[in-house]
């Protein structure tokens, strides 16, 4: 029988019990990781119920009174939901456009350069990615501080402008945040594009240049079209994550200034402040559930498209 199966190309399977016994040591070494996964990622899930309750720490998750959709009603009636959703989505769209453009530009430039200097450039622009958001907040502060900031003390006087109260004027913040986001992530994002460019067959460029194509034409007609799948893929992934924001960026860089909330509050910062500062846990939980559920749907939808385009890169 087993010989028959083997000749049909199937490996004979031992009974489950026997196989599990063989892998017992493997299960044992996996155990700590699985326990952590359970504690960190699955045990909290029943806590999602808090969004539908009037949470009281003393009574706990199960003892607190059930209030149905009231927390959500409040969240949407106050306009908070609209504001934080708008900010989260618009900032993410701006980040996708600006950071993708910059990352591709840098990747193309780097791919044409050679030698040690190329590595130096790449290391330098990647460095901001390794800095904690608290310290990025300090760096921004050195430039934006009203009394001592570099902009107010050195740059603006050069142009005869008077001081700007950066931390209370909302109109500058979309630009500041988009700039800081690009500063932080272009070095990271360009790596993937650069490796895609490096993967392009060199002979295509050689024959193009024999045919008299200029550098710009080669970029326009070879590099960019061949990067298209990577761009689409990364953009789809980013769209799948559009309900999530870089919490540190939106919390630390504007230094948690109340005057700026209308342009800096995202779903993540809202959930955070609700929990830590305001102490309205149920409300915060409602915003969290809103984010988790819509975020989940978006990831699945984005992934559906990814799978159609390129099954290898699909998550599911």
């Amino acid at each position: 029988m087993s010989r028959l199966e083997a000749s049909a190309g199937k490996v004979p399977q031992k009974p489950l019990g026997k196989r599990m016994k063989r892998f017992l040591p493997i299960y044992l070494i996996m155990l700590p990781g699985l326990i952590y996964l359970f504690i960190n990622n699955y045990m909290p899930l029943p806590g999602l119920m808090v969004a539908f309750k009037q949470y009281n720490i003393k009574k706990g998750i199960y003892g607190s009174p059930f209030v149905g959709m009231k927390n959500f009603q409040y969240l949407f009636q106050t306009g908070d939901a609209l504001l934080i959703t708008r900010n989260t989505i618009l900032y993410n769209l701006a980040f996708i456009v600006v950071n993708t453009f910059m990352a591709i530009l840098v990747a193309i430039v780097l791919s044409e350069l050679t030698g040690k200097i190329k590595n130096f450039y790449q290391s330098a622009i990647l460095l901001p990615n390794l800095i904690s958001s608290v310290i990025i907040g300090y760096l921004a502060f050195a430039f934006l501080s009203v009394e001592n900031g570099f902009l107010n003390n050195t740059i603006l006087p050069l142009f005869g402008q008077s001081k700007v109260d950066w931390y209370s004027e909302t109109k500058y913040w979309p630009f500041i945040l988009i700039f800081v986001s690009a500063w932080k992530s272009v070095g990271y994002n360009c790596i993937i594009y650069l490796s895609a460019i490096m993967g392009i067959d060199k002979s295509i460029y050689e024959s193009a240049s024999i045919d008299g194509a200029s550098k710009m034409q080669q970029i326009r007609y070879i590099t960019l079209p061949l990067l298209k799948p990577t761009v689409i893929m990364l953009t789809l992934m980013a769209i799948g994550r559009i309900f999530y924001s870089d919490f540190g960026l939106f919390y630390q860089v504007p230094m948690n200034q109340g005057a700026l909330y209308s342009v800096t509050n995202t779903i993540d910062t809202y959930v955070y402040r609700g929990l830590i500062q305001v102490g309205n846990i149920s409300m915060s939980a409602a915003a969290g559930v809103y984010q988790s559920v819509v975020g989940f749907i978006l990831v699945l939808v984005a992934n559906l498209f990814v799978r159609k385009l390129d099954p290898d890169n699909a998550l599911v």
Partner: protein
Amino acid sequence: MRTKEQIRFELIGNIIMVILTVTALVPIVLMIISSLTDDATLIKNGYSFFPEKWSVGAYNWIFSSNSATILRAYMMSFIITGIGTLCALFLTTTLAYGLSKKALPFRGLLTFLVFFTMLFSGGLVPTYINYTTVFHVKDTIFGLLVPSLMMNAFNVLLMKSYFTSSVPDEILEAAYIDGAGELTTMTKIALPLSKPIIATIAMFAGLAYWNDWNNGYIYIVKKTELFTIQNLLNRLMQNIQALAQNSSNLSTAQQGLAQIPTTTVRMAMATLGILPVIVIYPFIQKNFVKGITLGGVKG
């Protein structure tokens, strides 16, 4: 042969990259220079790349005995990063190794359980309630170590795919035939073959721990002696007086505050916060880039 066009292209490319490199580094340089500026000068002239008067006063103050708060927080950062990275490495490697075994019963289910956490998560509030009411990590060192940072699905799956693709089955089979058990095969054969990915994960985890300020902000409320340098920086952004608060009595606390070169000390602390990253950066840079490429589009 370099054509005229190529030379022009390289020139423009270099100009673009120099601009971007300067943009990337200038804020860090400003921070370092500010930390080396005389406090009174800084208050008078603002943050500047060319200070009128240089001074190491801020560092003197930090390393003098009266600022134990800062040095302790700095030590905490190193301790947390060290322990955290080791734990993260252990949990990630063992789980990923198991998941890479093709014949493992329930492999699909277990992989899905890991993977699902990338799609859906309870978010901050349920996690907070879980850790504070069930495990009581508030104001303990576990609050800094355990929540969220110890293992993540992305790293597990990254490592798993490395094991599956870069450790040839034939070598493992040969070891089994020679009578080696699962554990011996793992420690003697698979892991030595996987040094690059282990280094990459260690680096990701180490950076995450070193740069983390979230856990301290959420879970360390009263016991500020557990603060890492990031937590302290976070606290000091709002309130520089926290530096003097640890002094034993009020009068010395007030005295202390008057003597603190507050503006430059902030920047000196931020500089210390970046320093270890900059020091190891040349050594990890290649690995870091490789890790990002390995994660590929999934990153």
